[in-house]
Structures are given as C-alpha cells and as structure tokens.
C-alpha cells in the first residue's frame, strides 16, 4: 500500500499500521505546545487533581500572545506559567522576551522531521516546514496530553500542491499562498493534510516554507508538509539537531491524493486579501491606491528575518508616508538580534517604523489597534472584521514587500512599481 505523509506520520505516532483516511487513532505527540494561555492548561490540571505528567520533556510553553504583560491579570497568568515550569522542570519554557512560539520552537531545535506536534494555536500547521505533522488543538486537550501522552486524531485525506517557479521579482511565498487560498477558498482543504511539492518549494528556505505551511491553515488544513531535504538538514544542524535525532518521512510515489493542484508561479503578480476574509484575494493592482492608516509587518506568517530584510530593501532611503503608522514586530528575539546587528532594524527605524518587542503583537490584538473607519495593511494571516480594534475598520493582507511599498506611498502599492 502506498502512503501519504500524513498516513506515515500518524502510523509512527500511533504505533498502528495500515491507516486509512477517516479512521480515528490514539496518537502520542512528540511535543505539546501551549502559548500565553498555558495558564488555562495549568488551572485545568489543578481541577483534575493530577500532578503526575506523562513526559515533561514533551511540554513546551511560550509566552507570546500577550507579552510583556499588559495588565495585573496577565502578569499573574505569566507568573503561574513561570512557577509551574520551574516546579515541574519544564525545560522548554520561553518567557515574554522570546517571541512567537512557532518560530522560537523551530529556531531552538525542538521541531524535527517526522514528529507529531500539537499546539494551542491553529497555525501549528507551520511545523510542516521542517517535515513535521503539526496541528492545532484546544487547551483541555493539551492538559489531557500532559497527563496521558495521547489524543485522538482522524487520519486525514491529503491534497498535493505542486508549485513551479521561480516567481517574478517582487513576488514571494505570501503571494503564492494568497492566490492558492483565493482559488481553493477558506474551506478548500478542511480536515486535509496539505503537501507542498515542486521546483519552487524545493528552492525555498525553511523560513519561506514556514509561510506556506502557516497559511495552509487558512484553507482549513489540518496540517501541512514540505518534504525534508538538504535545506531542512542544514537548518536543523544550525539549530543544534544531530542527524540521528530524527527520522524523515516522505510520501510514497503513487500515494493517493484527494486532489492535485498544479500552480505555475512564473507569471504570478503580487496578491492581496481584501476585507473581511482571507480567501477574498485579488491582484494588488486591482486595489492599488486604497488609502492606509497603518501598516503592520509581523506575525508567524511574515516577520522572520528574511521578511524584515525584504521590507528593509524596499524602505531603504525612503520614508513612511506622513500620517501612516508602520509597526514592525520581529517574530523572535533571535530574528530581532540578527536584524539589529546587520543594520536591518536601523534601516526600518530611519524610514519611520516603530519597532516593537518580539511576539504576536498586533495580530493577537496586543497593540496596533485601529479606530473606526481606519485601514491596515498587514503581513499577518487573518483579516476578519474586528480583529485589530474597531469593528468598523478594515484589514488587508499582503507580503512584506507589498506592505513596505505601500507604507512609503501611504496607499496600497504594487512593490514592483517601487522596485522598478
């Protein structure tokens, strides 16, 4: 029997063989990620009256959604998590200085090919960028996994997406994903495992692959996957992971897919999601000139080091348009440190950007709110009504290149017009 990546990953995690889509298995994740709301998991554990954990080394906690604390309540939540980590010996505890959980865990070598990772965040699909099976679950489920080590998972059908490149100058993985989400729609991949293949995907860095896998969630995907290769292995080696510390899982040739999507990126124009859904996607040129009040470069989708470099290249020697707020929130302290040491941050600051501490920032409603009638262009992954302040405000989504070009003009701008 030929198998998809999802079938192989869930066979490994469940110890069962011959799994077919639709079947429900008990799987044992390699890692349980919980973010700022880990306090909910801790309180649930207290209510259960349990103090024996299945494997404390599989617990990862990252204080990213509200950081630093914005209220006495949040400070108390953080303290609860900090003290729990200390008391139980949770070595993979990252405090408010670290950055966005997904990026921090990958940078620190905690995510490896073939693993099953569950997280209290729907964008846990991002772990597919390193060939892992990552999926989002609820807080009680994380608590239950702390205790029992397992959870139920339905074996998903798979969708294969084959992307050929290279992309034209000024277009990036975000543009590809927005086009795909627009074409397949917000529920085009519901319950499915989405595999990315093709020459374009092979040419990408791990950071760029993170953008693909992160945004697969916005098509409803359960998990996403990029086949591990030398790019993956180098990233893991840099993160201190030994080659014998993981097992790469690849789909079989001839594996069964519900759908195969071929996408030629060679003629792709920059894309943008317009209010108020992520699958409402048009070429940037169609809405060019739309006035902006704020530009946000942040989130687990597009605030990694290479995203900041792309923004800095566009902004270098330019100024943010008068009256426009440009907020840049680096994905992690590692990203911020690198961008600080090589001048990327200075370029952004000189252009007029506000640099905030690493974390989820405005994407999680933590700063960067809008007043009635305002418009933000964001590099994040969601634009639902009311997500950034006023319910009477609008969010557009784009690549960092489009965001930076638009910040200079004060209105939505095709980056190809600025780069030219």
């Amino acid at each position, binding site marked *: 029997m030929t198998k998809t990546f999802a079938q192989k990953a869930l066979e490994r995690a469940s110890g069962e063989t011959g799994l077919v889509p639709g079947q429900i298995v008990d799987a044992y994740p390699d890692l349980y990620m919980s973010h700022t709301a880990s306090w909910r998991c801790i309180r649930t554990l207290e209510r259960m009256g349990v103090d024996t954990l299945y494997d404390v080394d599989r617990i990862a906690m990252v204080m990213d959604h509200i950081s630093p604390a914005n209220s006495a309540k949040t400070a108390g939540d953080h303290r609860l998590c900090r003290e729990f980590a200390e008391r139980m010996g949770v070595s993979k505890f990252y405090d408010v200085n670290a950055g966005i959980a997904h990026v921090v865990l990958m940078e620190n070598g905690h995510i490896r090919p073939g693993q099953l990772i569950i997280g209290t965040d729907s964008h846990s699909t991002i772990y597919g960028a390193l060939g892992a099976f990552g999926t989002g679950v609820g807080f009680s489920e994380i608590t239950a996994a702390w205790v029992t080590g397992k959870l139920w998972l339905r074996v998903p059908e798979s969708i294969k997406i084959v992307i050929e490149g290279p992309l034209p100058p000024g277009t990036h993985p975000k543009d590809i994903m927005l086009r795909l989400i627009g074409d397949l729609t917000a529920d085009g991949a519901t319950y499915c495992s989405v595999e990315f293949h093709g020459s374009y995907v092979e040419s990408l860095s791990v950071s760029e692959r993170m953008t693909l896998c992160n945004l697969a969630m916005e098509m409803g995907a359960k998990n996403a996957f990029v086949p591990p290769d030398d790019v993956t292995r180098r990233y893991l080696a840099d993160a201190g992971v030994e080659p014998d510390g993981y097992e790469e899982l690849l789909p079989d040739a001839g594996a069964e897919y519900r759908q195969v999507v071929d996408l030629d990126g060679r003629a792709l124009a920059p894309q943008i999601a317009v209010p108020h859904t992520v699958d409402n996607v048009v070429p940037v040129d169609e809405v060019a000139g739309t006035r902006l009040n704020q530009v946000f470069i942040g989130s687990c989708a597009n605030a990694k080091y290479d995203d900041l470099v792309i923004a800095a290249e566009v902004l270098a020697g330019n100024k943010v348009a008068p009256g426009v707020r440009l907020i840049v929130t680096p994905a992690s302290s590692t990203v911020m440190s690198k961008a600080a040491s090589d001048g990327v941050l200075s370029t952004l600051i000189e252009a007029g950007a506000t640099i905030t501490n690493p974390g989820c920032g405005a994407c999680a409603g933590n700063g960067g709110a809008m007043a009635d009638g305002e418009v933000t262009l964001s590099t994040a992954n969601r634009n639902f*009504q009311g997500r950034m302040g006023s319910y009477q405000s609008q969010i557009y989504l784009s690549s960092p290149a489009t965001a930076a070009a638009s910040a200079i003009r004060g209105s939505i701008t095709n980056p190809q017009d600025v780069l030219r």
Partner: protein
Amino acid sequence: MRFEGRCWKFGDNIPTDRLVKSRYVFEPMEEIVKHVLEDLNPAFPVEVRPGDVVVAGRHFGQSSGRAIATKALRATGIGCVVAGTFARTFYRNCFEIGLPALEIEGIADLVSDGDQVGVDVARGTFTNLTTGVTRTVPPADPFLLEMLQEGGLIKLAARRPELFGSEAVRSS
C-alpha cells in the same frame, strides 16, 4: 442527546471572531454570552432558549481555534449545533468542551430560520418538524459521543480515568 427547538440559521464560513468578537474574549462569560453572533442576528443572544438548535452552512467556526467560541455558544443554552461542514478546530473544541455537534452535508438548504427542528446527535438524525424533511448520517465515533455525554474531555477523564490509562507506548 436529543434536542427539539427553534432553528437559528446562519450562513457559510462564520468565523469564531464573529461568534465572540476580540473585544469580549477576556470578559466574563455572563457578558460574552450577551453578544454571541449578535452581528449576524441581534435577536439570537436575546431570544435563544434552552434546547434550541443552531444550523449553519459550510465551514462553521473558521479562523482562530479559540475555545471561548464554543464555550460561549454552549453558554447560550442551545442543545446542539448542526452544520454542513465545520472548521476542524471548532469541531474538535465542541467535543472537548461538550457541545453536541453534528455534520450533515447541505443541511442549511433544508431549514429556514425559525423552523422547529429535532436532532438526535447520538443517532445522527435530523428532522425539520415544520416541513417534515428528515436526514440521517452516520453518528460520531462512540468514544467521541461518550465525551459529549459526559460534558467534555476533562469530565470524561475524571469519571473514567481508565480510558486515558497508561498502556502508553512511547513513539520515540
């Protein structure tokens, strides 16, 4: 898990951000529950009665996996939620917190807002009592139905710890 009540009908792709808006996420549940789905139907949070049924189109509960959305919907007192399809995190959260959910393809085409409907989640049956139309689908896995019956994952774990026992085979 049988419910009979008024059908509150909603459309496709309703995001969790519309079930519970960001500005209410950190409010107490007594406050949150007054605003559930209010933008789509202001009468819903005011007039919903225990046992009523929410019926939606495709991809109900998309966007953020915030469990508060399912908890708030449960707190309105509805008996269950039936949708053409669910977003997967929302569907999972329903079982996790004990809000009965049933997926029936095309269900939204079979009801009008305000119809009387009857649903048996454990049997997978749906009846529009106003029009007489019925549908039957395979019910959820018995383990999941038990989770619903107990009121969610943590309550099930408390009552039947053996289900979560330690025949654990470590995967690495």
